[in-house]
């Protein structure tokens, strides 16, 4: 269980990174290494060159700009989980990051790495879809912004070009009436989710739901946008048990999971129903209480 031979370079700027990526046939970005290094040890990934971006301080941290929160790609999961400002301004991001792996993994693993890796069972890609966020990528020719809905192409596949560096992720800033929840099923604490569902919704002043988005992990080849399943709740001011369960049924029907050793497709679909009902209940409650006394 030793990696094949590879070269290594630690870069100091985004430009240096994208050049290194462009110059080499099979170069890969090394972020937290929590997904890439195990794959290399199994020789399932065999990059010729590792471009280490851990020194790019500019890619850490986050800032609010015109109603948008922009997170640097190198934000560690543990930072997202524990930083007081993130917890206040993007509570759903903090909650979701805390679901990833164990503390040791979260200390190293990064937001950008998780999004770029595009594991269909990973939480953050699903959250990004639920939040209808954007991915910011830099190449040798400049920067572009890709909506999450267009970013994920298949299991472990994205629309990033080989020579592009994912530099940031943008999501809408949390505002009054927003509520979100991420519910997942893990066999053991710290495992990848067998299935997970994010519900992001907004309730207007009167308490009626005027926006509801749903996305899932482990429920299809990519983070699945399952928002259509929740349309029947738009305009409702109260969420009944029957409504939550109905959302569960619709989410389960709309998802497209495949089976593996952690559970069959059928099992994941059953979980989706339970998780969506749970997530919408929690999100609904949070939206109702957020900032309105």
């Amino acid at each position, binding site marked *: *269980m030793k990696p094949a*031979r590879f070269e290594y370079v630690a870069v100091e700027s985004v430009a240096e990174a994208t050049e290194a990526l462009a110059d080499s046939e099979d170069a890969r970005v090394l972020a937290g290494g929590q997904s890439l290094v195990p794959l290399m040890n199994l020789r399932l990934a065999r990059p010729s060159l590792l471009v280490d971006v851990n020194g790019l301080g500019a890619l850490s941290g986050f800032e609010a700009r015109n109603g948008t929160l922009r997170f640097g790609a190198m934000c560690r999961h543990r930072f997202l989980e524990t930083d007081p400002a993130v917890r206040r301004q993007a509570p759903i991001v903090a909650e979701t990051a805390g679901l990833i792996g164990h503390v040791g993994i979260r200390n190293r693993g990064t937001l950008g790495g998780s999004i770029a890796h595009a594991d269909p069972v990973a939480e953050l890609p699903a959250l990004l879809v639920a939040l209808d966020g954007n991915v910011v990528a830099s190449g040798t020719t400049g920067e572009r912004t890709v909506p999450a809905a267009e970013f994920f192409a298949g299991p472990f596949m994205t629309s990033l070009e080989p020579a592009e560096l994912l530099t940031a992720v943008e999501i809408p800033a949390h505002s009054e009436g927003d509520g979100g929840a991420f519910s997942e099923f893990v066999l*053991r604490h710290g495992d990848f989710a*067998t299935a997970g569902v994010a519900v992001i919704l907004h309730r207007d002043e009167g308490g009626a739901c005027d926006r509801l988005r749903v996305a899932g992990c482990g429920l299809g080849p990519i983070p699945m946008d399952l928002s259509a399943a929740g349309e029947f709740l738009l305009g409702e001011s109260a969420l009944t048990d029957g409504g939550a369960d109905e959302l569960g049924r619709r989410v389960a029907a709309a998802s497209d999971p495949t089976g593996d050793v952690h559970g069959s497709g059928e099992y994941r679909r059953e979980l989706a129903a*339970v998780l969506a009902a749970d997530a919408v209940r929690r999100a609904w409650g949070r939206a109702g209480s957020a900032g309105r006394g």
Partner: protein
Amino acid sequence: MTAVAPPVAPPETTTGTLRREDTRLLCGQGEYLGDVQRPDLKHIAILRSPLAHARIRDIDVSGALTLPGVIGAFTGAELAADTGTFNHHLEAIPTLRQINWSVLAVDKVRFVGEAVAAVVADSRYIAEDALELIEVDYEELPAVSDVEAALEGDSPQLYEDWGDNVFLYIPGPHGDTETAFANADGVLEEKFTHHRIIGLPLDGHGALGEFDPATGRLVLHASTQIPHFLRTVLAEITGLSEAKIRVVAPDMGGGFGNKVHMVREEALVAVLAMRVRHPVVWKQDRTESLTASVHSRQQVHNVEAAYRNDGRILGLRAEIIADVGSPELYVIGAGPAIVTTAIVPNCYDLQDYAFELRCVATNKAPMGAYRGYGQGQAVFLIERVLDLVGEKLGIDPVEMRRINMIPDEQRPYVTATGAVLDCGSFHDQLSDLLEGADYDAACRRRDEARTEDRLVGVGIAQMVEATAPNIHGLAGQFGVYEMAMLAVQPDGKVNVVVGTKSQGQGHETIFAKAAADELGISPDDVTVSDGDTGVLPYGSGTWGSRSVVMGGGAVIKAARQVRDKMVAIAAGLLDAPADQITVSDGFFRFGEAAIPFAQIASAAYLHTFLLPPGMDPGLSVIVGYDSFNTSPFPDERGKMNVAATYATAAAAAVVEVDPATGVVSVGDLTIVHDCGTVMNQVILDGQIHGAVMQAIGQTFFEELHYDENGQPLTTTLLDYAIPTFGDVVEPRIIHRETPSDLIGGYRGAGEGALIVVPAALAAAVHDALVPLGVPITQANLSPPRLRELLRGHSAA
């Protein structure tokens, strides 16, 4: 456990009952195989079959040899020229297929992961690079991974000359089942299944070999539970004499039975050390341990139980099919299934019991030992039968057990298969369980929960465990006995060497105490070592809950012999009759007179003129210790007393099932445990805690998956889920102490909780699902599997 000081020299003393080895092991001062270093050490990597079943047409290693840093590349065919083969040494079983196999596959591969070629290089990195340059020309053959499919007439065959895939067939027609079934009021027919799992030590198999051509001596450091057995096998494979081979088993991060087998790679390391004339090391990586070491448990039971309406089980017929995977494993992997057949009657009076055992080869990694060694499957079978029959008859589980239990008066009780049970009262043990678990209250709470539509269940199970087994007729050429060396040094301090091998069980602590108690000194004055065939002529290793029973017995026997000699010396010095000398607190006493222990020791070595006339100097012995009560082979009726003694246990579990996700939460777990004399309760409780964790793991988390073509799907710990600390269930433990007739009164511990708890959990889940009417007949109750069961039921 004790608070651990920062790394310091291990304490000279042990306090109370804590383990003296813990400071060393917990502060990173242990020496595991990976810590053994040699100048000029070379590294072995092994090319493994990607196919489940194929003929090897040709292997070309020339590419590997071109890589800088590669010392050599080897194939099975090439090594076969001057290397011996493995075989099972079970000629005594006529219905066993006799096979021979080599350190690397030669003509055929029979599972994904089978070793086909090896590279020796300057580093493991280079060695793994070189593996990619070896070309193997395979002729792929159809594979079979399902054991029932392997029994079909049209199945692919692993060994064409067999004509089928049945590796071992044993019929066991005990008693008179014809009459029992004829007299029955009803017959229960059930199929029980046990899934494939693995006893997975953190520290996997591995070996470091050194060969000195000048002296012709081979030293193999191997992470093994059975260093002396391994030496015997290495002699067969290498052609060296056992006198020229030394096997050293260093500290080990677990074994669990996996390392009671001599995997071919261990012998390969020895052979390559002799070939390349450098010290060489191979350490199993995690994928190798999951796909190419020793799997376990997988069995199918087709059972018919004849019962009377009063709850009495009159007779039982069991067809037991064990999925042994590739049978090329020594000691034989069929052993656990043979033990399954022997333990089925458990603590019940069931003389009319007939089984048919088929151990079937499939294109999967070999199956073999794992803590419990086939006994958990037997206990699951009979305990499920009692509950299912009870359910039909409206008799509750406690009553079903009392009706069928072996009466207290019958001791020893000889079971249908010949086990001579010397155990304590099963009735009293059950009463202790019910009281300890507050069983009636638990049942009341379950009934209340049911009124709230919650699926809560209570289950009980009991077990008898064959401890310190004799494995001549079960597993190979080795017996049951143990050896120990004890030397009192001139300064009065003591060395004890045992033939058992600690994998973390605290043997340094317990054997020091065993010796010290006999010698009347402090355990602090006793140094214990194990795992070195260069020091002790032979030993049987650690497995089968045997170490305290057999190793403890050997140590006590050795200490008594040395003490007798010391008493004779003291008698001379005190001018007293030997039979009036007492030994305690480091003194030999006669009336008011006392001589320090150390003074007798110095007389034996230094001031030998003080010895009684004609007495040889020195104070050391090497003893062999056998219980003399086991059967090496089945008699003509197939009966066999498999073990030196028998431990017992009972468990009660309370669970709640979430029907939506299939998750089972264990609310409460009580274990009553009788391993005879308890030597050290801290260590014993630790054994029970560990076994409970593994029981939780095998029931709710673990499963090795293969697809229908024999491709393994659980190849890393991402896929194979072992429980973590978040999943710990802390049992309530009640000890009973019914001494055996063996030295020390020990019965053996370590495996019991893992044998009985899965059956109790299954019973509790079954009980929880009573409102849904879903019976539990499978050992695998992981959330997806339980959901599958519930789904199948609601669809029906």
